[in-house]
């Protein structure tokens, strides 16, 4: 599935690379002990270091380093045993030090790759160039006062991972698939919550166009792309814009552009000439970071099963389709839930109940699996009741509806409402006999060849048993008695 732009002078290919900033899940900031949680009162989580008071020094947060290693391993990437923190110098009110501590020449994580799943069911490998740790900036607020700006330093100094991809992405769909997969991996690893709306995962998109087979064109970096939809739209718009310029005889300027979601367009933020000279140099307050092999191995041992591994295992062990497996692994909590339900039970049946019944109901209410009042063990118990013929599949749906409302155990609901399936052949035979006796005309019609009436008899028996009669026994008895 090739994505191409039809220009007036032929077709064009778009080349995309992504820079994703992911906020690291950690109790405290990258170089200070201040809390890193969200939503606190402005400037309530600011240490002396974060405010860049005179004489304050950064001390590296070991846990943030561990999170970066974990992420690197999750991206199948090389962990660099020596990395260096450098200062990126520029002035801005929400950057108290006058420099951001980042990694430049020697990032903590080197080359890696991830496999993305495309809408047509195919997969593609996207290269990861690097991952480095850096400080987040604070927040400038310009709309609270006509002439003043406010600064909130709560985010100042929080750890970010910048994850840079190779320019391997060729379409808006691939770009969103990349982001989705990256987000899924980060969530599995518990290193970033991946909430693009809250800004804990932000993407800058580098876009250029070229004639298929030609060398790379000049790229523009598009910022402020804060949702999957925005990524899609920004790429479509920007690629089209570049094609029009080139076909019109113009030339693309390497520049930073801003995505305006309201107007649906990108516009110039600053040109290459206006670009800052960041004067990177190694931060003399911090020693180079050396990672012991033993530490990396210890982190590797704590890695959870990653989405792709899980998907293939689900397909193999539970006989699931690729589609069902993909839906189940999309969230770690969902996959974990499914595994509890499926454990020791029929995998396909478990998948059906989780996907069709539970996720169907939750989706309708706009809830996720973690909001479910039905615990995985309870859903498993419901499946057990079907398997051991305590209730029929049909009754099970009613029991499920009740569980979804009350959170009660299925056995309790079955008991309370007397839904236990009747498997006593004598009792069912009695009802079958009654139905046959009450419907002589239909019996005659059936016996004269109207096979379709069989369903009518099953329905009648079910009705009389209030749905509790075992359908297999009904079938068996009816067949026997009607054929007499």
């Amino acid at each position, binding site marked *: 599935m090739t994505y191409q732009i039809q220009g007036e002078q032929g077709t064009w290919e778009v080349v995309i690379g992504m820079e994703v900033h992911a906020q690291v899940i950690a109790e405290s900031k990258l170089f200070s002990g201040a809390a890193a949680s969200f939503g606190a009162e402005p400037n309530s989580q600011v240490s002396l270091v974060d405010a860049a008071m005179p*004489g304050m020094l950064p001390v590296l947060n070991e846990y943030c380093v561990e999170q970066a290693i974990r992420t690197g391993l999750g991206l199948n990437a090389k962990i660099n045993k020596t990395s260096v923190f450098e200062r990126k*110098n520029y*002035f801005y009110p929400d950057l108290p*030090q*006058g420099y951001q501590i980042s990694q430049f020449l020697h990032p903590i994580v080197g080359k890696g790759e991830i496999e993305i799943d495309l809408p047509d069911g195919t997969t593609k490998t996207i290269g990861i160039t690097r991952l480095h740790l850096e400080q987040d900036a604070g927040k400038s607020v310009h709309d609270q006062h006509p002439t003043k700006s406010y600064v909130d330093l709560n985010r100042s100094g929080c750890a970010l991972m910048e994850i840079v991809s190779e320019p391997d992405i060729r379409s808006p769909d691939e770009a969103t698939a990349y982001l989705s997969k990256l987000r899924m991996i980060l969530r599995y690893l518990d290193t970033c919550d991946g909430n693009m709306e809250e800004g804990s995962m932000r993407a800058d998109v580098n876009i250029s166009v070229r004639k298929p087979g030609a060398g790379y064109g000049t790229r523009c970096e598009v910022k402020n792309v804060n949702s999957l939809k925005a990524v899609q739209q920004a790429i479509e718009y920007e690629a089209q814009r570049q094609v029009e310029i080139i076909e019109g005889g113009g030339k693309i300027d390497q520049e930073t552009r801003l995505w305006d979601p309201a107007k649906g367009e990108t516009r110039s933020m600053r040109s290459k000439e206006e670009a800052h000279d960041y004067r990177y140099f190694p931060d003399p307050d911090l020693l180079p970071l050396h990672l012991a092999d033993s530490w990396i191995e210890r982190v590797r041992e704590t890695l959870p099963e990653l989405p792709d591994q899980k998907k293939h295992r689900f397909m193999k062990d539970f006989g699931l389709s690729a589609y069902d497996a993909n839906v189940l692994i999309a969230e770690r909590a969902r996959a974990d839930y499914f595994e509890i339900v499926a454990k020791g039970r029929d995998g396909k049946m478990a998948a059906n109940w989780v996907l069709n019944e539970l996720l169907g109901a939750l989706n309708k209410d706009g809830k996720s699996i973690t909001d479910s009042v039905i615990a995985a063990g309870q859903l498993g118990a419901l499946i057990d009741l079907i398997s051991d013929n305590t209730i029929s599949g049909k009754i099970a749906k009613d029991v499920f509806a009740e569980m979804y409302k009350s959170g009660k155990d299925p056995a309790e609901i079955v008991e309370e409402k007397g839904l236990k399936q009747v498997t006593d052949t004598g009792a069912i035979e009695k009802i079958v006999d009654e139905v046959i006796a009450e419907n002589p005309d239909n019996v005659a019609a059936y016996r004269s060849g109207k096979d379709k009436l069989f369903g009518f008899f099953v329905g009648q028996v079910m009705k009389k048993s209030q749905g509790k009669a075992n359908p297999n026994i009904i079938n068996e008895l009816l067949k026997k008695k009607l054929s007499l």
Partner: protein
Amino acid sequence: MTNLTHLTIEQALKGLEKKDFTAVELTQAHIDAMEKFRSLNAYIVETPEIALKQAAESDKRRAGGKAGLIDGIPLGIKDLFCTQGVQTTAASKILEGFKPEYESTVTSNLFRDGAVMLGKTNLDEFAMGSSNTTSAFGNVINPWKRKNDNTDLVPGGSSGGSSAAVAARICMGATGTDTGGSIRQPAAFCGIAGIKPTYGRCSRWGVVAFASSLDQAGPFARTVKDNALLLRSMAGYDPKDSTSADRPVPDYAAAMTGNIKGLKIGVPKEYRVEGMPAEIEKMWQQGIDWLKSAGAEIVDVSLPHTKYALPVYYIIAPAEASSNLARYDGVRYGKRVTGENLKDMYQKTRAQGFGEEVRRRILVGTYVLSAGYYDAYYIKAQRVRRLIYNDFMSAFEKCDVLLTPTAPSAAFAIGENEDDPVKMYLNDVFTVTGNLAGLPGLALPAGLDSQGLPLGLQLLGRPWGEETLFNVAGVIEKAANFTALPASVQKAA
């Protein structure tokens, strides 16, 4: 009662212990002396109330048998150390009125051991200078004068307030910081002793940063042993400073056995610089002779990259400073000059807040870090810095300690070297190498020149070789028997 301000720290501690006088009396004597010598401008802020309160607490501790290592000793604190609730300016207008909510690790350590703070001593702005003439709070005047000449002389820099105060007996010791010689050169100019310990020995936490990879705190005092006492309290591992070393602090004074038999003293030939006064050369030779007669072996060594030390220093130090001083932007604390917009505010604040020398170094530092120049200057300087370090390591295969002059001249008059910044930078020629290599360096007075001004000798040691430095310095001190006093101090005594 003897003149309390003329005691050494060692003597004062004995006197306090014997109840010859109280810490309050000792402190009051210094407060009185400070008033007499206010014209030296050694202190930016005097804190007599704090000092007397601390002294009273000290007396209580001593009475209760809980006196610390330097309990009741009144000190001057260089105004580069952040002191909780007491104005800390780095001698810059940009921090005028700034009162930290925190106490630097070094001053905390001193207070933990019972030190009394008399005030914040003057310095070159942000510790950038060798003459204490760049302070926003005025020049510091050296208590020493040339014979029959009333010209005001500089106390050296950047810790000129501290060195002048110790020499003038208006504190018993003081803290300094040394980025390129800022403890050792003023110690030499003021006829006292001072040590810059190994990089990482004293925490930089709470010290206003100049050049992070070179800055190191250390003490000033009138004797070598007093320095040993003060450094023991100041030093120590601090988890808040990632560059501080996690190793135990020895009892430096105990290392002063006076026995240096068989110790090898290196004399680097490259330190015989052109234009160095013959008197300094003579003093150096005198030092060599003293050590020889004490049983040490003299070894000629070579430090071939010495000639690059000054240019390397004047690339690395301003580069780091240009970044370290970016935080003084008028946004959160200190001086703010309002402007028409953000950029205008930054420009006005920094143009009016920083003095000329600081602005010059920020410009130099910004330049050497710029795209296109970074490799040619900063990267190359870092490479040469490594070579300078290697020079020392090879020299220390042949010797245990290096002996050199501290500065290429005695104290000069205010304004004398100001026409040419490069000439001023030459003051640091013997001291910057120690900072670039991270080595400990101790300066002590060795005699007077023909004009009656003190001249100093410097000892450079291996990393963590402070104990050897103190021991050798003790031997020189004894041989030199430097007892001269500035005339004004003698008169006041």
